């Protein structure tokens, strides 16, 4: 446990440059500055490591970095996505607070590999404590001559800046995030063109999640194979899981991919007093909900969670006990997506409104039997028909809640009240 992003977690002042350096931090960066490693070698190590994007989509990071037109002339950018807004997710906040230098080094390495001399870290507006931490670390790095122009007399330059959000979940979507840095509303762009060709300010750009960047220095310091070996096939390394909800000791845990869910539940202190496991959302609110049975048989890796019927997403494990009303829980999630839809595409804008209104009517005691089919048909019309994945994210919970807990919805409609809460 705690071998990569969290490896210094238990040390005093773990966020400081001093502690980061004592544990081998910036060694890889120094090698790069001395011309001892090539971009191609780094991409190969990342591919070997099996690191997949930690922001939710799980795209292999080495492959993504290889798509950047590094030989082309002109400015290029690396962007870190610290917008962390997916309900249930709170790991990037802790990386920024407790290991900011790993993010800085990871971004600088990315800048070198992709020939981008400028980076931005987009931090959600509410994260003022993590923002100040990260700014403090940036200052330390500049003062130590680790960032800037022609660093250490080399031909390598890398300038890194923060950008703060202002409260919009959709800005976590990578092209909405780029719009936001450009000072616009955070509305996702049509793709193609992809950011690797036309990104920030129209220039080639690569966007990665905070945890993805923070994993890079450790991978390169000890070799991609070692990282891969920490995990299982198809899911290299360790991953941070935020375990919240009805557990005795909610917390973030950095554990090897492939760890059984039941072990993770135990690390989180088991169920809180008196509760019996009822349901688990394993990857954040946008991923399908699982029954207790399916969850208890699952391993925490991309394939293991898929086999169980859901997705690893951002690793946000929301645990629910038998006091949970699934109708009311889904209604709250539906309200969230309705609120956060950017309104650009009709199926998402109208569909999220429908989903919420039908569920609201149900929880107000005015549901009708046709509502279940109506919900299923609305979610089906959203799936796959929108510009960005927020549409699917709104639809997927509906289908899975209804499939796994249908009788609760039927009860709510028939009796006008919750089967669980009365």
């Amino acid at each position, binding site marked *: 446990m705690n071998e990569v992003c969290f490896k210094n977690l238990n040390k005093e002042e773990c966020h400081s440059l001093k502690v980061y350096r004592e544990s081998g931090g910036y060694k890889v960066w120094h090698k790069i500055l001395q011309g001892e490693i090539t971009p191609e070698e780094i991409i190969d190590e990342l591919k070997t490591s099996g690191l997949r994007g930690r922001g939710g989509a799980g795209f292999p990071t080495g492959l993504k970095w290889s798509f950047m037109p590094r030989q082309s002339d002109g*400015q290029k950018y690396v962007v870190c996505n610290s917008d*962390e*807004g*997916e*309900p*249930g*997710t*709170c790991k*990037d*906040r802790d990386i920024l607070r407790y290991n900011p230098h790993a993010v800085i080094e990871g971004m600088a390495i990315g800048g070198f590999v992709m020939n981008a001399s400028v980076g*931005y870290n987009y931090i*959600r*507006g*509410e*994260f*003022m*404590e993590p923002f100040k931490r990260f700014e403090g670390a940036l200052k330390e790095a500049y003062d130590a001559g680790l960032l800037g122009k022609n660093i250490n007399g080399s031909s390598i330059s890398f300038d890194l*800046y*923060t*950008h*703060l*959000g*202002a*409260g*919009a*979940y959709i800005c976590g979507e990578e092209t909405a995030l780029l719009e*936001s*840095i*450009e*000072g*616009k*509303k*955070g509305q996702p762009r049509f793709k193609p063109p992809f950011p690797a060709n036309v990104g920030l*300010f129209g220039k080639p750009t690569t966007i990665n999640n905070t945890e993805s960047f923070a994993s890079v220095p450790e991978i390169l310091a000890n070799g991609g194979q070692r990282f891969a070996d920490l995990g299982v096939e198809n899911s290299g390394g360790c991953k941070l899981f*935020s*375990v*919240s*909800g*009805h557990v005795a000791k*909610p*917390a*973030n845990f950095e554990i090897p991919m492939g760890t059984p869910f039941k072990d993770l539940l135990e690390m989180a202190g088991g169920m809180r007093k008196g509760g019996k496991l009822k349901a688990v*959302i394993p990857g954040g*609110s946008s991923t399908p909900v699982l029954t207790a049975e399916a969850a208890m048989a699952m391993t925490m890796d991309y394939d293991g969670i898929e086999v169980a019927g859901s997705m690893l997403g951002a690793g*946000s494990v*929301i645990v*629910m006990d038998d006091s*949970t009303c699934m109708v009311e*829980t889904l209604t*709250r*999630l539906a309200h*969230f997506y309705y*609120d*956060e839809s950017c309104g650009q595409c009709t199926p998402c804008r109208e569909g999220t409104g429908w989903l919420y209104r039908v569920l609201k009517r149900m929880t107000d005691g005015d549901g009708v039997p046709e509502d279940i089919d109506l919900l299923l048909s609305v979610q089906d019309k959203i799936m796959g028909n929108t510009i960005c994945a927020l549409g699917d994210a709104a639809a997927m919970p509906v289908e899975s809640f209804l499939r796994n807990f249908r009788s609760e919805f039927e009860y709510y409609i028939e009796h006008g009240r919750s089967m669980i809460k009365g």
Partner: protein
Amino acid sequence: MISDKAKEQIDAWIKKYPEGRQSSAVMEALKIVQAENANSLSAEAIQAVADYLDMPRIAVQEVATFYENYNHKPAGKHTIRICHNISCMLNGADNLIDYLEQKLGIRTGEVTKDGLINVKKVECLGACVGAPMFQIGDKYYENLTEKKIDEILATLK
């Protein structure tokens, strides 16, 4: 409308972006101006930011209304932003919202008579393992209980 100190702060943000891309600083400029004007953005404030950043007024208006962190009607001196999303809800956020409303004598969205406090329900603030939680100013308060809320409210002046 924009003080010299605010201009200095905005200029520091502008420096982070390429030449001619000062509109990238609009989100922070609006926050800085909002903080100076009783926590809310008037039409004049939006115009002033537009002028300062050399942007069309409508572009600034769009940003000011798209993002949640901006207020367009009077807010309290302190805004309690309480999360009611899933992990907080599972840990009793709704009861705490009732408790706050009762204790302050206001509904969410309203300001106390003395102008000190308003309460806003917000979506996940990325602190789910500390649920239930709220934010006041730059600070997060986690693992809230009624007793903790009493103590926090007593410090708000």
